Each structure stands twice: as structure tokens, then as C-alpha cells.
């Protein structure tokens, strides 16, 4: 047997399907394995166009490959689909190479094909699944960790690295407890055991606040979802970690708003109750003294008539004062705030001028300069200072010496503080909080309504500040109101318009 005979036998009995086509793409050779693989006998196919075994949808692709080979390339282990004589499609691995004669001239193309086995297909599926899973895991917005039965991290994704600040190689193989704050670490193995005894898909620590620990030592609130993975001989757990810092912040803000609303509501209730009580008081007087007046008129007691009339008129003006002050108070809360640059020296000098006319000759008001320019609501600050001055005039008078009121301003790190000091009888410290309450007066004879300091306090609240008094009996009183330096200019408003 010469070489070419041996080669012919080799091709003929090879396990792989070996075919050859001429340059016109017609089949020239077709071995026994090809007969088995494609279902065509050698006699049937030789001389026929090779595209009989190519699915029409792949024809274009097929010719591209053929052209590549014709210019000298080899297509190796190329996975594709062919169609058998009976129409069934088969997956094959194909190697295509050029056939040349002794002068290296291209005379045809050979194609060696092998049917892909079930294992081959499974392996390919697995590799594809792995790629898919990898992409899914990596692109997940959550940190994903797989932890084995001993608490060691076996796998984690990109987001886990970002969340905790560790590189993957610093995490894999380490105990998952490294991601838990030290103070909570000791309990975790116990929780892990409880979980592996009753593994279900669930939220970790549903009723607890969970915390994660970053590489840099900082911690952050997390939510963790757990799911068991049961393999043949291993029990793994996958943990999906979400950073809930922002959610917590939002929650807290909401709760704060709720508390604020509840407080406001309580304030309104208290307000309505107080109003109903204090407005009723002059009405009781009016009704009763109208009764007395009738009796007095009947009995002709002129002095008593005049007394009743005087009381009726006083009760009437008290009612008017109360309603006026209440309107003023409600306006403090109702009108939209307008924060702007305000020169307070200007406000104070205006107030001083308007109030001095109500003072007796020997009384005086001193302004201690400088007074600041700051961001506040001009009208409201003016209202607050106005009430402080009127409060000083009403309650700061003493029988011993003329009234002297001093207005000054000071600055702390966080606030501007305005102080109105008087040289009056002073106030016992145990009443210092009480006097800022609505309708609270320490001296019913001084004629106020008990609204003024409530207005002052509200003005302070609106400027994130406070209102307070420093005083002792006999030593005068210093009323102060603070205006936070953190107040921002109201947005839709022009620049400094002082």
C-alpha cells in the first residue's frame, strides 16, 4: 500500500466527518463518518453544492468563512449548526482548512466536523451560565456575599468591595465577622448558627438595627437579606447587603417632622383652650356687672352706677386688647417668612423713637451700639423687639427710681443675641420659664394681656433661636432673644435692599 492509498483509508475510516469541496463549492469527497453525521451517502452528495447541509439562515455566514479559508486562513473548532438530510439540525464543532496541490495552488477546501456531545453542550451551558451569573452579580446594586458553614466568605461582588472598602482578595477566605462592628461581633456566630439550624429566605434581624463595619473603621446602617444555598455536601448562605444610610436619614427627617407636627398640634390645642378661657373671663365680668347696673339703676344708686359703668368699660377694653394681641400673635405664625439682610440699628432707632413718646420725662432708653446687620425676617424681629421694649415699660417700672431701659446686642459662635435690660423690680427665677407662656402674667394689676413674651418666644423660634430672661428680685431684668446665624436668605428675593 502506497502513501496515498494509506491516506485514503485513513480519511475513509476516521471517526470525524471529513468532507472536501472544490472551489465551486460542490462536494468532492465525503467519508463514512460524514455519511453517518449528515445522513447523505457519498454517492448522493458528491457533485452536489455543499450548502445542502447548511441551514439557510447561516448561509451568508458560511460563505464568509469559506472566503476566509480561500485566502489562506484556517477556521478552528468553530461551533455551528448543520442540517441533516432528514432536516434535523445538529450542533457540530468544525475545522475548515484549504487544500493545496504540489505547487501550493488552492484546489479546494476540507471540513472536519465532530458532533458535539451532551457533555460538551453541558460544559458550554455551564460556562455561559457562569458568565451570566458573574455579570448579574457584579452589576447588582447590593453587596452580595456567599458565606460557608464556618462563617468564611467564599465569594463576593464588586458592590461589596465598594460598601466595605476592602478589595475582594482581602475578603474571600476571611471570616464574615470582620464586617461587623466589634461590639456586636461576639454574638454573630450564635446568630449564624441559629440561622443554619432553620435556614429560610428572610431578612436578617428584622426587628434590630444592623450595622456594617468598613475597613476604615467607620460603620453604617445596613439591611441584609439571607438565603440558604444547599449543595450536595456544603451548606452555604448568601447575604445581600444594602446600605440604608439615606433611608435612615429620610426616616429620621420624617419622624422629626411628625414630632414637630404633633407639637404644633398640641400648641394649637393649648392656644384654643387658653383663648376660650381668657376671653370668657371679661365676658363673665360684663354679664354680671350689667346685672348689677340694672339693680343700681332701679335703686337709684348713682355712685354704684358709675362704678359698674367703669368696670364694664374696662372689661370691654381688656377684651379689645386681648383680641388685638391675639391677632398679632397669630400673624407671627401665619405670615410667610421672608429672610433678608437687615440693619438692626435702623429698626431699633425706629422703635426707640415710637416708644419714647409713651415714657414719662425722667425715664430713658439707651441703645448700646454697634447693632449688627444680619439675616432675619425684618418685620418679625421688629415685632419681637417691640414686645420686649413694651414689656420692659409695663413691668420694669419701680417706685424707687426712674425707668432705664438698655438695648444691646452680642454675638456667639452660632447666634446674634439682642438684650433688653431694665432696672425694675426683677423676677424670681422660678417664674422665668412660665412668663413666656400665653396669658401668663405675674402681676395682674400692670394691665398687660400676657401675650407679649409669647410673641417674643415665637419670633425666636422662627429664627431657630431662643428667648430667655436673666433676673433676680430687686436687680432688674435682662430679656434676650437669639437669632441663629444659620438662617439662609429667602430664595426668590433680591440682594441686600437696605
Amino acid at each position: 500500500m502506497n502513501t496515498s492509498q494509506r491516506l485514503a483509508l485513513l480519511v475513509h475510516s476516521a471517526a470525524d466527518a471529513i468532507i472536501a469541496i472544490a472551489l465551486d463549492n460542490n462536494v468532492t469527497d465525503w467519508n463514512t463518518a460524514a455519511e453517518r453525521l449528515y445522513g447523505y451517502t457519498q454517492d448522493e452528495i458528491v457533485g452536489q453544492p455543499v450548502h445542502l447541509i447548511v441551514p439557510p439562515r447561516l448561509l451568508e455566514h458560511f460563505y464568509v468563512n469559506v472566503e476566509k479559508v480561500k485566502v489562506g486562513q484556517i477556521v478552528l473548532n468553530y461551533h455551528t449548526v448543520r442540517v441533516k438530510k432528514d432536516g434535523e439540525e445538529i450542533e457540530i464543532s468544525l475545522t475548515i482548512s484549504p487544500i493545496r496541490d504540489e505547487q501550493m495552488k488552492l484546489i479546494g477546501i476540507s471540513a472536519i466536523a465532530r458532533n458535539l456531545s451532551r457533555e460538551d453542550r453541558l460544559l458550554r451551558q455551564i460556562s455561559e451560565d457562569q458568565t451570566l451569573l458573574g455579570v448579574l452579580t457584579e452589576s447588582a446594586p447590593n453587596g452580595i456575599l456567599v458565606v460557608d458553614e464556618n462563617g468564611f466568605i467564599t465569594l463576593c461582588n464588586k458592590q461589596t468591595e465598594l460598601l466595605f472598602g476592602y478589595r475582594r482578595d482581602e475578603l474571600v477566605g476571611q471570616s464574615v465577622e470582620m464586617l461587623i462592628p466589634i461590639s456586636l461581633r461576639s454574638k454573630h456566630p450564635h446568630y449564624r448558627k441559629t440561622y443554619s439550624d432553620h435556614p429560610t429566605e428572610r431578612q436578617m434581624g428584622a426587628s434590630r438595627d444592623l450595622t456594617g463595619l468598613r475597613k476604615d473603621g467607620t460603620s453604617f446602617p445596613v439591611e441584609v437579606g439571607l438565603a440558604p444555598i444547599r449543595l450536595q455536601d456544603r451548606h452555604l448562605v448568601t447575604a445581600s447587603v444594602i446600605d440604608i444610610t439615606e433611608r435612615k436619614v429620610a426616616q429620621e427627617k420624617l419622624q422629626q417632622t411628625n414630632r414637630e407636627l404633633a407639637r404644633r398640634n398640641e400648641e394649637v390645642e393649648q392656644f384654643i383652650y387658653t383663648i376660650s378661657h381668657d376671653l370668657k373671663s371679661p365676658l363673665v365680668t360684663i354679664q354680671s356687672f350689667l346685672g348689677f347696673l340694672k339693680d343700681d339703676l332701679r335703686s337709684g344708686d348713682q355712685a354704684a352706677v358709675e362704678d359698674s359703668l367703669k368696670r364694664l368699660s374696662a372689661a370691654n377694653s381688656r377684651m379689645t386688647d386681648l383680641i388685638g394681641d391675639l391677632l398679632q400673635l397669630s400673624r407671627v405664625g401665619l405670615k410667610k417668612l421672608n429672610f433678608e439682610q437687615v440693619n438692626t440699628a435702623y429698626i431699633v432707632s425706629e422703635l426707640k423713637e415710637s416708644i419714647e413718646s409713651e415714657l414719662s420725662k425722667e425715664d430713658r432708653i439707651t441703645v448700646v451700639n454697634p447693632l449688627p446687620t444680619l439675616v432675619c425676617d425684618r418685620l418679625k424681629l421688629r415685632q419681637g423687639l417691640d414686645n420686649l421694649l413694651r414689656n420692659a415699660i409695663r413691668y420694669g417700672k419701680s417706685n424707687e427710681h426712674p425707668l432705664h431701659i438698655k438695648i444691646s446686642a452680642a454675638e456667639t459662635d452660632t447666634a446674634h443675641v439682642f438684650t433688653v435690660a431694665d432696672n425694675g423690680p426683677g423676677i424670681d427665677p422660678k417664674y422665668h420659664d412660665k412668663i413666656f407662656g400665653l396669658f401668663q402674667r405675674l402681676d395682674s394689676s400692670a394691665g398687660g394681656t400676657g401675650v407679649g413674651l409669647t410673641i417674643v418666644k415665637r419670633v425666636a423660634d422662627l429664627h431657630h433661636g431662643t428667648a430667655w430672661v436673666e433676673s433676680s428680685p430687686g436687680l432688674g431684668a435682662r430679656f434676650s432673644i437669639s437669632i441663629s446665624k444659620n438662617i439662609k436668605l429667602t430664595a426668590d428675593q433680591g440682594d441686600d435692599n437696605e
Partner: protein
Amino acid sequence: MNKFRECQRKKIHFLLVEDDENHAEIIKRGLDKARISNTLDWVQDGQMAMDFLKKRNGFESRSEPDLVILDLKLPKKNGHEVLSEIRADPALETIPVVILSTSGAEADRALSYKLRTNSYLVKPLDYDCFKRLIDDLSFYWGTWNAPPKDMKA
């Protein structure tokens, strides 16, 4: 009025705690015309009421009141504070206290009773009602009410 002549009457001593001068005047006038003879001491805030009851700060020589008529809205110390201080003091705890307030609010009434007021009365708007209330109040406490003998400190 005559048919009550056989009732045994006592002279009754009131302590009126009331910051509103007009309301105090209404109550005083009502008591003057009441069916029973009485004396009245009047203080204008809660702090003075406690000074009076504890015989201090100028009230050392006052006589014991048979009944305290107590307003709720008072300067310095409100009616509820006064009431709870009275009830917390072994020397004062049995003294009858009647709240007489403009407030008809449930919270005020409930707290007053919790603090062991003997009665809670709302100041009537109507003149005749107010007169009648004061008359009934003095007659009830001065005639029908029978306090224990050792009530006074």
C-alpha cells in the same frame, strides 16, 4: 328664706383665691347678700394663697378658713398647683376646696378631681345664675356640710 330659720347656721370663713378684681367683686357682693353670715379673705395669686394657708409672709395672725374658693388661672402658682400643695400638706389636706373657674374644659375638671377638689364649679355667664351659685355655695357649706371637728390644724 324664712323657712330655713330652724336650720342650724354657722358663721363661715372663706378664703377666696382670685386674680381678677372684677370676679372677686362679683363673688364678694354675692356673699354679702347670701342667706348666711360669713367673712371673706381675698388673695390674688397662688403664692399668696399658700402663704395665707401656711400662715407666713404677713399672714401669721389670720384665722382658719372653713372653705377655699380657688380659681385655676392664677399668677405665679396656678389653682392646680395650689390644690396639690394643700392636699400634700398633712396640716391642710382635709380643708374643703371648691374650684371656681371660667374653664369648663374636661382636662381641668378631671385634674381638679384627681387632685381631690371637693367640688368643681364653672363661673356662669349669667348674672342671676352667678348670684344663685354664690348663695347656694355659702348655704351648702355653711349649713348642710358637717366637717370633722378636728379638721382645722
